[in-house]
């Protein structure tokens, strides 16, 4: 089944709404607080992460737990590239950095691309042993890989500066970089999902044996999905590193992966639209939920903040969604302008009928 080609009207509407988004960003950059801008940057990075994580988990149906590891690889790669040789000499106090890396210096866009490719390379290295057997092991291999990245980042002092981490990164990430890459990522992934490759991924998700009988090379398709996810997650790691400007091994914990898992499950596994919606919702909502960890007084009861309560709420909501509404917000449906107008028309008809 061929997806309907984008009509003139739809293309125009997409362009106009992208323009509106850019106008909003311009407004936000000039007329809102630093805090708002920071959250907007975070939202963009989380959209990139959620949409690409959804490719392997939702579209190709292979359960994987890699984002924190891939974020770390991307962040370290791009940070090592953008730090100037003088800055590196200054911050590597335990042991000096190894030679070619210590002189490496390039611009921000180059470092982001490098972050993407290095991460994709690691994804490929993991995909080959795992998908030769069966997808089941992917979860445990990626979970273990997250631990290994932590161990390596703490011990390979000559490259990563060990537990001290890398400090003083230039704060290159602004709204234009983060949202520009975010829009580009969403565009690429939507095109991918609607291509023959995307349909092959969905076929593998539904029934691997049947897909193979139809001539789909399941190993190649799964590897492609995982490597692509890796590429975009690596780029997001680079963006994140230059947003917070200090990275260390303890930053990239499993918490990141867990947050993303919640996002794609609540959005609806397999729906890019759902991933975007939930990324916005959860990132903004997560900021809002910080109040449960702070001391406050409700109706005369003094309530000491409970650290960790946010994660308890998150994990309970994940289990709850899986049991009660496993399809999430969007199910596997996507947003199209046609559906949007259908809904508008229905609403208007309902109003006139009254």
């Amino acid at each position, binding site marked *: 089944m061929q997806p309907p080609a984008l009509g003139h009207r739809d293309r125009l509407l997409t362009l106009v709404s992208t323009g509106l988004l850019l106008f909003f960003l311009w407004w936000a950059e000039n007329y809102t607080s630093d805090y708002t801008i920071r959250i907007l940057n975070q939202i963009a990075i989380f959209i990139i992460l959620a949409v690409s994580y959804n490719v392997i988990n939702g579209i190709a149906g292979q359960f994987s737990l890699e984002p924190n590891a891939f974020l770390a690889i991307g962040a370290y790669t791009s940070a090592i590239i953008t730090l100037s040789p003088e800055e590196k000499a200054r911050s590597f106090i335990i042991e000096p950095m190894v030679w070619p890396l210590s002189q490496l210096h390039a611009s921000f866009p180059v470092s982001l691309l490098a972050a993407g490719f290095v991460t994709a390379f690691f994804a490929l290295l993991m995909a080959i*042993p*795992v998908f*030769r057997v069966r997808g*089941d092991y992917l*979860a445990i*291999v990626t979970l273990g*890989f997250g631990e290994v990245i932590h161990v390596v980042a703490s011990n390979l002092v000559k490259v990563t500066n060990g537990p001290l981490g890398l400090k003083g990164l230039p704060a290159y990430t602004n709204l234009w970089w983060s949202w520009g890459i975010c829009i580009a990522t969403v565009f690429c992934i939507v095109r991918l999902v609607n291509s023959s490759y995307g349909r092959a991924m969905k076929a593998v998700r539904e029934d691997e044996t049947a897909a193979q009988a139809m001539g789909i090379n399941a190993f190649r398709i799964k590897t492609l999905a995982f490597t692509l996810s890796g590429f975009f997650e690596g780029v997001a790691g680079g963006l994140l590193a230059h947003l917070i400007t200090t990275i260390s091994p303890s930053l990239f914990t499993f918490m990141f992966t867990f947050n993303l*898992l919640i996002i794609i499950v609540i959005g609806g596994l397999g729906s890019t639209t759902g991933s975007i919606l939930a990324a916005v919702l959860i990132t903004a909502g997560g900021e809002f939920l910080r109040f449960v960890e702070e001391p406050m007084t409700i109706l005369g009861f003094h309530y000491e903040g409970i650290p960790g309560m946010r994660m308890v709420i998150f994990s309970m909501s994940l289990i709850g969604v899986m049991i009660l509404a496993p399809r999430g917000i969007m199910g596997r449906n996507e947003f199209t302008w046609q559906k949007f107008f259908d809904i508008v028309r229905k609403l208007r008809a309902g109003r006139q009928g009254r």
Partner: protein
Amino acid sequence: MDPNYALQQIVFGLTLGCFYALLAIGYTMVYGVLRLINFAHGDLLMVAAYIAFFAIFIFHLPWYASFFIAILLTGFLGYLIDRGAYRPIRRSPRIGALITAIGISFLLENLGIVLIGGRPKSFPSPKIFSGTFTVAHIQIPWLSVWIFVVTIALLFLVAYIVYRSRVGIAMRAISRDIETVLLMGVDVNSVISFTFVLGSVLAAFGGIMWCLKYPALEPFVGVIPGLKAFVAAVLGGIGNVVGAAVGGMILGLAEVLIVAIQPDWSGYRDAIAFCILIVLLLTRPTGIMGEPLSD
């Protein structure tokens, strides 16, 4: 290398191997029946250790009574998890069960932080488990003997249940074809619940033993042993109870001996299991004693 030193390291390796074996048996049993990687297995270990800790320090029970209560309550928790979280989604696609398992694992860890706090607690060590004795210049901790005895005993018990008892026949039948088993009138839900309870009891034994050896008890204590136990289970051939024990032994020996030979690598110790897993998947994905995978 000095032969005494080598033998001493082998003793340490076998001790660690027994821990991994004990945990891997529970992992492999649940996976064998349900084809579900039970991520919460390592966290049940943590729960059991905390229950034992509080029974000793708050209720002042003797160690054997508190260990018994910890094992019992952890088994019950395993039942609750199956009943509350896994049973409602048994019919949905497998990815749903995996996500729920991750959710439960994370829930247990963070409940631990909220209820008990993240500061490590020092697990008590009853006299009977401490001290060492010397055989031919090699020091052997009494705890090593205990863990060896407990692991072998539980291995025989589980092997008997899985391969000889009626419920074991049902468990193995469910792992082959759940639809047909349902048609045969087997109460699939209770068999699966039983599997979870047994798996949790094994995790509880492992958790108490683990904390006797490494007494710093904190909510994330089960994560790394849980991961390694899974590697051990794959190494032995996932689903195979005896294989899991063999895999655990090999993994424990490998970790201790590699660090003994190359002390520089001690920082990378936790990465060894992962490298073994990757090499294994490339060369012999069915493990040492596993049957060929059907799908």
